């Protein structure tokens, strides 16, 4: 491996100017406009130094360290096993291993808090660690793949698999630690998850919650901006050394003498290793997704033995159901509430609760005739002819419209109807999400290529790389408000009101991710090819797009997909911008407020599908492996 010398000869100044201008407008300007508010009252920075702030920061750091350690403990062996060994289904497991980082952590939390009694900081660190282990796994896997076969064979001959692992661990560990530092950064910026996970029991507060809370007080803008500084400083403290280390080691290009290592045979360890990888993927991805699928079919109610068929729903019901088109009549006396209570009492009685008021087995109330013939499980004991029961079932449009009882056939039917409703009500939102994400990824990727090239080949690469990460490390609220301040002017009014602002907002938020991927890819690309093209008279654009791009196009696809996926799930900054209002993620969070029902579960799965869609398409139609790391 040859260590390249650094020179700026390959970096085109006009192209770099375009890239920097794009970066300035998309990413830095909103933050600079916010930073300007600090100038009005710089004393707020000193106000931050206090016992409460320090304690919050301490908790935040501890949470970050916990999450990073868990991510390292899971991601390092997982990344190594799926990339280098003969575990069963390694390729599929490797692809599935990316999924947890693409899922909103709150979705993991909703599943995990149902399955485990743990709460507070431990649970929080566990969820964030599992959610971000793919970052470690990615780094570990790529490091493991870059170990020369000859070196490995020598170790194998010397002492078998044990020697190989002992030789490789020090080589992989720095990269894996790099991944865990990124997991740390992700963890310290999350405030919704700690709040959610400590809803029962002692409250667990982190510093990011303080940042969010401060924004609520007007006339205090300088302080609100200042509160973001400690998190930015923490991020810088972690990321800068990582970038420096990456620039040193990541600059190594795999040359023509490099021999790809062979797949390691695990022997009797193959089954346990496969089980470990399967467990990781199950816990991090399959379980939350499976739980959503289960609930979209009605969940435990379908298998509870209580059988109710519902009819007369309007436009989707559940969290999707809003209100009737005409005013309801005034009810008096034994009105709706009594009837509902009667029906509920009967339903609870049938599932083993209080005794039913009017036992009459074998009947399903509130049934539409067409559906009454559907297969059902054990019947509940309620008189369907009782007017109060019928009135209750018609009036009490429950959030979950799935049928009760009926077992698997009813489950399948519920799943189909829940997805039909979710699609019917949220088709436009899904399309907007896809459109915005497509635009953001398409805008960010070429810019990321230019910036990534400048980072890898330029003189002040680490500084530029650090700057590109800032928007990602800044709180979403800060970035969103900065975008309003930047774009809400008469001259840019039309743009502000259009979907274009959403594209720009998402691209600005996630350009950092694309740039990191591209910079790594460029570093691994043999610079001599670019130099040869330059000698042959190829201009900067031709070298960048004609020589470099074909060589790293799998990484470019990786960066496009990463921006796309992150844009689909973005919420923090988007919630402030009018045009970003009708995205699918927005709709999920609005509906989930009232508890998950079949509609919310189906919609969540559709969002997950949208997030994973480009990756799935790639896996199906491309023979090349997608690269997020060089």
């Amino acid at each position, binding site marked *: 491996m040859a260590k390249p010398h650094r020179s700026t000869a390959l970096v085109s100044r006009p192209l770099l100017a375009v890239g920097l201008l794009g970066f300035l407008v998309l990413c830095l300007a909103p933050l600079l406009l916010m930073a300007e508010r600090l100038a009005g009252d710089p004393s707020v920075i000193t106000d931050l130094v206090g016992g*409460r702030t320090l*304690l919050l920061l301490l908790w935040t750091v501890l949470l970050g360290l916990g999450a990073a350690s868990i991510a390292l403990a899971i991601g390092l062996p997982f990344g190594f096993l799926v990339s280098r060994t003969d575990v069963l289904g390694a390729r599929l497991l490797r692809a599935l291993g990316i999924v947890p980082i693409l899922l909103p952590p709150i979705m993991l939390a909703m599943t995990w808090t149902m399955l485990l009694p743990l709460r507070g900081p431990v649970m929080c660190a566990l969820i964030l660690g599992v959610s971000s282990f793919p970052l470690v796994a990615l780094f570990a896997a790529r490091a493991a793949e870059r170990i020369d076969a000859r070196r490995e064979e020598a170790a194998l001959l010397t002492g078998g698999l044990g020697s190989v692992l002992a030789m490789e661990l020090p080589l992989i560990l720095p990269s894996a630690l790099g991944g865990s530092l990124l997991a740390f950064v992700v963890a310290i910026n999350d405030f*919704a998850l700690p709040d959610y996970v*400590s*809803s*029962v029991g*002692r*409250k667990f*507060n982190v510093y990011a919650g303080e940042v*969010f*809370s*401060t924004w*609520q*007080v*007007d006339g*205090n803008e300088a302080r609100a901006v200042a509160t973001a500084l400690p998190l930015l400083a923490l991020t810088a403290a972690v990321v800068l050394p990582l970038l420096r280390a990456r620039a040193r080691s990541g600059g190594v290009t795999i040359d023509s003498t490099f021999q790809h290592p062979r797949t390691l045979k695990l022997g009797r360890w193959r089954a346990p290793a496969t089980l470990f990888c399967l467990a990781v993927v199950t816990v991090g991805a399959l379980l939350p997704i499976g739980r959503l699928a289960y609930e979209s079919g009605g969940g435990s109610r379908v298998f509870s033995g209580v059988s109710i068929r519902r009819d007369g729903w309007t436009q989707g019901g559940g969290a*999707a159901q*809003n*209100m*009737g088109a*005409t*005013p*309801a009549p*005034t009810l008096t*006396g034994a*009105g*709706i*509430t009594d009837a*509902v209570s009667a*029906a509920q009492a009967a339903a609870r009685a049938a599932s083993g*609760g209080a005794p039913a008021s009017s036992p009459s087995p074998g009947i399903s109330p509130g049934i539409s005739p067409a559906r009454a013939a559907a297969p059902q499980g054990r019947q509940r004991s309620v008189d369907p002819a009782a007017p109060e029961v019928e009135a209750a079932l018609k009036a*009490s*449009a*429950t959030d*979950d419209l799935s049928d009760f009882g009926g077992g698997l056939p009813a489950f399948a039917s519920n799943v189909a109807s829940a997805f039909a409703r979710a699609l019917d009500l949220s088709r436009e939102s899904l399309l907007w999400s896809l459109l915005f994400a497509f*635009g953001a990824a*398409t805008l960010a990727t070429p810019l990321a290529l230019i910036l990534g090239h400048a980072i890898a080949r330029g003189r002040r690469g680490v500084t530029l790389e650090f700057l590109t990460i800032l928007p990602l490390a800044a709180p979403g*609220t800060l970035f969103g*408000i900065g975008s*309003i301040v930047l774009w*809400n*002017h*008469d001259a840019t*009014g039309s743009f502000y*009101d*259009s*979907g274009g602002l*959403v*594209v720009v907002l998402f691209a600005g938020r996630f350009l950092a991710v694309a740039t990191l991927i591209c910079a790594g890819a460029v570093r691994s690309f043999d610079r001599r090819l670019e130099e040869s093209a330059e000698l042959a008279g190829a201009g900067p654009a031709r070298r960048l797009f004609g020589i470099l791009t074909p060589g790293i196009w799998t990484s470019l696809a990786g960066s496009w997909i990463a921006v796309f996926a992150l844009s689909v799930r973005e*919420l923090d900054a988007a*919630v*402030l911008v*009018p*045009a970003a*209002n009708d995205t699918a993620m*927005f709709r999920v*969070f*609005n509906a989930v*407020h009232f*508890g998950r029902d079949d509609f919310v579960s189906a919609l969540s799965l559709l969002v997950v599908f949208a997030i994973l869609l480009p990756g799935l398409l790639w896996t199906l139609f491309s023979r090349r492996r997608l690269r997020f790391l060089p």
Partner: protein
Amino acid sequence: MRLPRILLPAVLVATFSACSEPDLVVRVSLDQVFSEELMRDFEQSSGLKVRVQYDIEQSKTVGHVRAIIEEAGRPRTDVFWNNEIAQTIRLAELGLLEPYDSPSAAEIPELFRDPERRWTGFAARARVLIVNTDLVPAGEDPKGTMDLFDPRWAGKCGIARPLTGTTLTHATGLYEVMGEDWAREFFKRVVTSNQSGSVNLPESNGQSMTLVKNGALAWAWTDTDDFNVARLQGAPVRRVYPDQEAGPGVLMKDGAPLGTLLIPNSVMILKDAPHPENARRFVDWVLTREIEARLAASRSAQIPVREDVPRPAHVGRIGDFRAMNVKYSDIGATIGARSSELGETFIR
């Protein structure tokens, strides 16, 4: 490569142009699941193209109020339909609202109207206790604010942190009615009780409702709309209006029970709104009796502020329970400072 070359400009053009200039921009903080159909109906009946900006539980005031403040130099919003009142008064005090005396509001009690007509209240919610009937036998319900500290409910009761939404409005109301010192001590005691494990602090009223519905908590503070959702979901719950009659757990003020806080929706036109005429049309429409009746009959079960507006029996009337005697203008004037103080109390 041909397809992407054609597809890319098409998608970008569609993205940039699809959100074309609307006839009206409305920010709505009444939950989307409740308000969306109403907004669609207005669009259909008026023929106007309306852009609606909803919020999410997590963002609440940071979302709408902050964006309105930031947009003040060049307002892009015509109407703000707020599902509470304190932040509305904040906006009025910042001079961001345009007075409008809607004819539809003529019979709305003055209590719910700004004397300067910058905002109008309608369709209220009340702060209530949601009680799990499987866990709390009838007759043993909690009765009021101070039940949070009753040892028999240790670990089984909850109140959302008063940092956003109606819980913040409620907390600010307590400051105003009970006095600063009392409120400060009370909330410190809530935090201490949480640290000792006896009081839980869910992330929102919605989650409070979910935790009680699922039996994780025996009871918690929430709003009437959240309670109604649990009721409609068939959950084993009942509603208790807090601080109604003197007794253990009940908060008293000047020898009488404090009552519960009533929080009306409020609607207002933003100063220098880009579409003032359409904004007035919308305000006239939303303040009609029909809309208040629909909100009452809806899943959010809002309580009409006009006595003669029809409603389902379970919604009740404002006189059915003792309401906290509080000036909304006082709450609005101090909510910013209280929010800051409560943040320091609860986030530590």
